[in-house]
């Protein structure tokens, strides 16, 4: 346990000892704010159009039901955030294993008392912690939308959990990709590719059979994440993200064995 604790401390020191972490958190907050306020601006414009087209001024009875804070701001923001995370998180995870390989420090790590399993656990744990911090920063604006929409704390918690699990799922994919290469660029690009492919399989439905389409949907990130946005915390969706993390960890652990055997 001492060895694992030492590695966790080192990983945190490496991450938060450089300005990259703070810069990333700041950028994520900024991008989230831009996405949120852009949708809010659009919502206000729509409201203005309806209000001004009914000569009687601002009368909410004249505004159709589908123009509301929920459908016009909140859902699109969550959708865009989901995709933004797929773009941003592999940039954070690409270093984790690939940089160790490129610098040769992976050899230093595995010749200590640390087991490959402990190295994987430490790397994943620190990445998950950072993703959670990132989500907390990103969540300020969706939270305000939920609060304004009067949806309550339970819905707020479900959305935060969904965002965090989605971020952790994408981070797991990115970390697994990083474990198989010494190139950070390859790690990032493969992380994006896998996450984008997993994001949504619905476009394949016309080309495959019904059962295959159902199976593919079970594997998709989007419907799982979307369900949290609606305020539903389904156990199978939580289990899906948990399984994604575990499979990714097993793959990263396998990369050490593969390296040992070599070719």
């Amino acid at each position, binding site marked *: 346990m*001492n060895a694992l604790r030492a*590695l966790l401390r080192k990983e945190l020191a*490496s991450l938060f*000892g450089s300005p990259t972490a703070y810069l990333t958190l700041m950028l994520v907050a900024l991008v989230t704010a831009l996405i949120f306020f852009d949708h809010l601006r659009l919502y206000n414009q729509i409201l203005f159009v309806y209000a001004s087209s009914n000569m009687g001024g601002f009368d909410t009875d004249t505004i159709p039901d589908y123009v509301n804070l929920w459908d016009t701001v909140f859902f699109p923001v969550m959708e865009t955030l989901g995709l933004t995370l797929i773009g941003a998180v592999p940039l954070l995870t690409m270093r984790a294993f690939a940089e160790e390989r490129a*610098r*040769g420090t992976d050899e*230093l790590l595995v010749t200590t*008392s640390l087991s490959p399993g402990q190295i994987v656990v430490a790397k994943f744990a620190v990445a998950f912690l950072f993703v959670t911090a990132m989500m907390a920063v990103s969540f300020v604006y969706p939270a305000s939308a939920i609060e304004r929409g009067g949806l309550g704390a339970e819905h707020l918690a479900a959305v935060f959990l969904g965002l965090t699990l989605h971020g952790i799922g994408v981070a797991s994919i990115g970390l697994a990709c990083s474990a198989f290469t010494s190139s950070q660029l390859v790690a990032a690009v493969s992380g994006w590719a896998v996450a984008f492919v997993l994001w949504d399989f619905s476009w394949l439905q016309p080309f495959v059979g019904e059962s295959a389409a159902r199976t593919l949907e079970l594997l998709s990130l989007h419907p799982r994440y979307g369900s949290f946005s609606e305020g539903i915390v389904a156990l199978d969706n939580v289990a899906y993200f948990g399984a994604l993390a575990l499979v990714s960890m097993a793959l990263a652990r396998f990369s050490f064995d593969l390296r040992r055997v*070599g*070719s």
Partner: protein
Amino acid sequence: MADASAGTRTARGIEVVAERLTRRFGPHVAVDSLDLVIPANTTFGLLGPNGAGKTTFIRMVTGFLLPSSGRVRVGGLSPVEQRRAVCERTGFVMETSRLYPELRVEGFLRFAGGARGLAGKRLAEAVERAMARFGLEAVARRVIGNLSKGYQQRVSLAQAFLHDPPLLIVDEPTGGLDPVQQDEVQTLLAGLAGTRTVLLCTHDLGEARRLSTRAAVLRSGRLVAEGRTGDLLGGADPLALFRPSEARA
């Protein structure tokens, strides 16, 4: 510079034995049926040109790579089946570039000691001892990436010493260092003679002469010579051992 010979002088080295040790990478044979005994408490030079198989051999000793066939024993333990036990008995000094340049010297040593299972007072004492032994107190709070290569190599030596291992593996310790830095590092290594087993991997014959008592020469993964360093490298043309057979003919 700190006196490298400070600390315990009790001989506590362990033996390394390779038996028909072979490692292939696809069709390329990096280490070919190597039989070698590295006696306890000797400073043993593993010599050979680039690509001779020295680093591959070291990696099999540390358990980082698995042998394709044959076996290696470190103090009677198998790096394949008892990797952690072997690592606890081994200190590994790598080239200077293989450090964490973003960490501070003391922070890195605390991490390296922790990763070897040390904690609390034992860890603090080990870090203090290693910094004193390798003259790192003055740079304890400095970032490793900002240190000279000579100091980085001292950091590398210090991390390998934290748990006081009976086997020290040193891979190209003076590569890329200027002559003064080379002399400093070699003096530190010379101070370890007789206290433990030191496996020194180098292609610098002068370094091997200065530091090792016994040596082996690898070429294309095969053992071409083994014996007392003075006898091996004392001839008129010691470089002949490094040249391919046809070039020598």
